[in-house]
Structures are given as C-alpha cells and as structure tokens.
C-alpha cells in the first residue's frame, strides 16, 4: 500500500481528529490554569455548555460570531466567578461546587432556551455569516507542495481549512506556556498552587492570584463553548457538550498539568474519537464486523485505561483542592 493511499485514508481522520480535539484542548488548558493555581475544577463541562448557549443566543441576536464569542466568554467567566467565590472566598468543597456548576448550566440553558425560543432549548439555527466558517485561503501552499501529492493532501485536509477558533486553540498552548513559565505572574500562579503560604508571606495576595486564574479558566471555557455552538455546528442544542469537559479533565491528568502534554493528550483523544467514527461499521481484519457500540465505547475505555494503566499516580499541584486558610 503506497503512501498516497495511506494518506488518502489517514488525512481525513487526522483532520477530523483535530476538529474534535479543539473543545477538549480549550477545556484542558482552562483546567490547567485553574488547577495550577490550586483550584480544582470539575465544572469545565458546565462552563462550556453555558458558553455554548450564550454564544448561540448572541450570534443569532447580533448576527455575528464575534458577538457570540464575546458573550460566550462573558457568561462562562460569570460561572467561573461563582466557582471562584465558593472555593476561594467561601472555602467550599471545590469538587461539589464544580458539580453544582454543571447542573446549573445543564438546567438554565435549556430552561431559558425553551422560554425564549420555544424550541426544546435549542437556539435559532445560525446562518453562514453568523458562524466561524472554515478559512478558504491556503496561501498557495497547496500548489507549492505540488497539487495532488500526499503532502499537499495532508496540508489541505489536516492543517489548512479549519475555522479561526481551531487555530486559536493551538495558539493558546504556547501562550499558556509562556505566561505560566516565563513571567513573574506565572511564577506566582504556579507557586500559589503548590504552597499558598509561601506566596502570602511573600506579600502577594493568594485570593487575587486564584481569582485571576479562575477568570482565565472561564475565558478558555468560553472559547470551547463558542466553538461548539458557533463554529462546529450552527446553534446550541441541549447537553451539546456531551461529556467533553470530563474527557478534558482526564486529558489534563494524563498531561501531568503541562501545556504541551495537554495538547498531545487532547489530540490523542480527538484522534481516538475520529478513528472510532471512521471505523464504525467497517469490518476489522481478523475480527470481522464489530458492534457499533464497541467503537462508541472506545474513547471512554481508553480514558480509564490511560488513567489507571499508564499514568498511575500523577501528582497534581500540592495545594490544589485545598482551601487556603491562615487558621491552623
């Protein structure tokens, strides 16, 4: 089997894998910011869902994907601040707070959607100009690589022709790294996730840092939600996040709380999903046709296997999940 043929099969799967990994990546980075600062966030799913709804509404309202993005981020940040208030100011149980956020988003989105549009929680279908569409221009690179050649095929199917947010997601990775590992803000933020007392006695506000981290987390979840509702599909539908927030968390653990690992992990999960889709119904050599469900279960099984099997005890930032208090 020659390269061209392989590429013909592989390229679309890779492309689809990238598209599927984008919401994971946004969420995973969001979780990274939050947990690096010591705030565990089970509520990524909820924030993403809320953002998806808000962006769907806004994009339809003002006929612009950018309006969608802006409002999506706003709402997601609002939810993040609720979580922040509960876990930073009120020193509540962070996991519980996250779960509450998830339910709140699941309920409110559909409730309001139903009241406003009476379409079972769906927001109006978005027209092309109201969405982030895949970018056409390929800067002649395709031709440069030689039309029809495998590498051109790879370029056009895998790298080029995604929508803006896809590139934003992959841009967010180095950005996160620089901010967290190359600036004083990042130094403090990572320190506060490991030993808040040290940061406090160094004359830096623990709460201040953590609130900022939580806000960044909200912003990234906002991107994720907007991507779902305004880029990948044309409007919000109830529960459209379908557990991606949790997969992202798994990816975060898998990535040992590091940005570039996170990218790798999310791509892996994305590709798994894409492969599962592609393989549905196609007979496997040796095994023959397997029930659809096997492939549908694949990503979940692999998540568990990866968590238990390969990573074992990944140690999160020391102080994550522990409310900061000066009282002994």
């Amino acid at each position, binding site marked *: 089997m020659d390269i061209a043929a392989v590429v013909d099969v592989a390229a679309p799967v890779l492309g689809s894998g990238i598209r599927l990994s984008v919401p994971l990546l946004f969420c995973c980075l969001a979780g990274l910011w939050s947990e690096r600062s010591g705030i565990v966030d089970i509520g990524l799913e909820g924030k993403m869902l809320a953002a998806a709804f808000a962006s769907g509404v806004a994009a339809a309202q003002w006929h612009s994907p950018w309006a969608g993005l802006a409002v999506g981020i706003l709402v997601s940040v609002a939810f993040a601040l609720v979580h922040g208030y509960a876990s930073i100011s009120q020193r509540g149980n962070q996991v519980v707070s996250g779960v509450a956020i998830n339910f709140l988003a699941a309920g409110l989105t559909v409730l309001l959607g139903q009241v406003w549009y009476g379409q079972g929680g769906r927001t109006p279908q978005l027209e092309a100009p109201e969405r982030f569409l895949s970018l056409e221009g390929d800067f002649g690179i395709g031709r440069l690589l030689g039309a029809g050649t495998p590498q051109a095929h790879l370029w056009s199917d895998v790298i080029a022709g995604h929508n803006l947010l896809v590139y934003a997601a992959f841009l967010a990775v180095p950005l996160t790294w620089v901010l967290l590992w190359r600036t004083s803000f990042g130094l403090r933020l990572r320190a506060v996730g490991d030993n808040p007392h040290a940061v406090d006695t160094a004359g830096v506000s623990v709460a201040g840092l953590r609130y900022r981290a939580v806000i960044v987390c909200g912003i990234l979840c906002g991107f994720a939600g907007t991507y779902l509702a305004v880029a990948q599909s*044309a409007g919000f539908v109830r529960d459209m996040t379908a557990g991606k927030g949790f997969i992202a968390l798994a990816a975060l653990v898998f990535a040992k709380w590091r940005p570039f690992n996170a990218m790798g992990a999310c791509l892996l999960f994305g590709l798994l999903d894409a492969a599962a889709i592609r393989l549905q119904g196609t007979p496997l050599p040796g095994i023959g046709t397997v029930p659809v469900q096997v492939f549908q279960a694949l990503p979940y099984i692999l998540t568990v296997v990866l968590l238990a099997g390969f990573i074992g005890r990944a140690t999160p930032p020391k102080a994550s999940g522990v409310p900061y208090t000066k009282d002994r």
Partner: protein
Amino acid sequence: ADIQPAVLYDLGGKFDKSFNEAAFNGAEKFHKETSVEFRDFEIQNDAQREQALRNFARKGNSPIVAIGFTQATAIEKVAKEFPDLKFAIVDMVVDLPNVRSIVFKEQEGSYLVGVLAAQASKSKKLGFVGGMDIPLIRKFSCGYVGGAKSIDPKIEVFQNMTGTTGAAWNDPVKGGELAKSQIDRGADVIYHAAGGTGLGVLQAAADAGKLGIGVDSNQNHLHPGKVLTSMLKRVDVAVYDAFADAKADKWTAGVKVLGLKEGGVGWADDANNKALVTAEARAAVEKAAADIVSGKVVVHDYMADKACPY
C-alpha cells in the same frame, strides 16, 4: 361531537424539528381549522408517560395521541383503566378496543429517497446517519439502501450511529462530525434519521457543498438547495386524522398501517429542492413509487426478520 384532544410527545421533545414536531403541526392544523383547543405534554422520564396519560384521561381528554413506540406500555395500562376514552399511539401496535395504532412503512419512504440519492450521487457513495442503533432506525437505513441499490447495485452506503444515550438524538456536533467523515470518504448525499442530531448532519452536508436528506418533517427549507429532499412520515396527518375522526364520530380503533399507498410516507417535493431533482431522477422515483403502490416492488421491512437483505 365536541372533543378535548391531547398529545403526549416522546423524550425528544415537542420541537425536535422531526416527528414530535410533526405531531404538533398536525394538532395545530386541526386547532386552526376547528379552533378546538388541545393539550400537550413533554415527558422527562419513563415514569411520567403513564402519569401524564392518566392526567389527561382524568381530565377527560379524548382522543389522547401518544407519539413514539416507547409509549406502548403506558398506553396499554391507561387505556385499560379508561375503556370509554379514545387513545391512539404512533409507531407501535397496542391491541385494545379503544386504541388506534398507527404504524408507518418508513422503509417505503426511505426506499424512495434512496432512489433519489442514488440518482443525485456522482461519487456513487451515499451516507446514512442514525441516532441510536435500534431496530426502528435500521428500518430506515434498510429501505434507504434498498432504494439506492435498485438504481445501482454497486453503490456504496456508509452507515454511522451517533450514540447510546438519549443525547444521541440531540448531538448535532457528533452528527456533523459523522457526516463530515462520510463526506471525507466520498459520500455526496447523506440521509439522516437522528432527530436533533440530524440538524448537524444537514448542516455539515450544506457546509461541504454536498446534499443532505431530511426525515419525518419536510426539512428542505433548513438549507434551501442543499437538502435533496426529506423522507416524509406524515405523523401530522395521523394526528390530524385521529382528532378529525373523533370529532366527526368516524373514530375507529385497531391498526392503521400508513404506507406509500395510504399517503403515510413519501418524499418532499417543493420549491426548495426543485433544482436538485433532475427529470430523470423524478421519473425514476415516480416509477419506484408506482411499483411499490402496485405491489410490484415490496420493500423489505427490517422488523419482519431483523435482517436487511440489501
């Protein structure tokens, strides 16, 4: 007689742009014409089917139309409890003296859109996206494949199922991704039977400049010129008739099988897809329809033997 009709939708919800919505439209039409008020309800869990039906019954609603095969057990119970009220159920047979069971020959409608798809396809590769891998959906896909193969036996049909929870009927993102992957594999016409998920399918097809095929209601208008046609399942007619018959005292219980002959299923032909259906395709589909009606062609029903010969 003056009646107080009621509709009970399935989990998908009233506005699934699909068959629950079709039911709603039927009821609305009846309301507009006769200005008879009707009640309706969306259940949130299985325990409520029975509860809701009983609620209707207690308030003396009749006829009570339940949408979806999942309602069967509940209807059976409640209809027994209220023998002098009229009940109807769509998509399932409940054998009681006061229940009208309406089932559709989705396979025939699917066969027709399969024919159209085969005609419209240049790549000779088609796609099908179902919601959940359950018998009803296989009934759709089987007919579709049959129709397509009747035009060109070598034609290839990719089939994908969306998920395994209720969310599977409501996951346009996944739907879109499934469609995209079929398009990547060369499919240029994609038929969906996946409720809300289908919106994603049609969207993806439209975005990629390919053709989608709608289901249940006429979905041609969702992406004018990008939806080849829709497999019409006239749940709206079924509901409307149920109401109307009751009003006109022409109500009959028993099984009503609505196929092509009875006008229960068909393909959507309107301004939105005029340009897409070539004369040749039109001829082919009309011939197929005629053959089915005349019985010359019998479209295989997956439910008969849980197998698809095509």
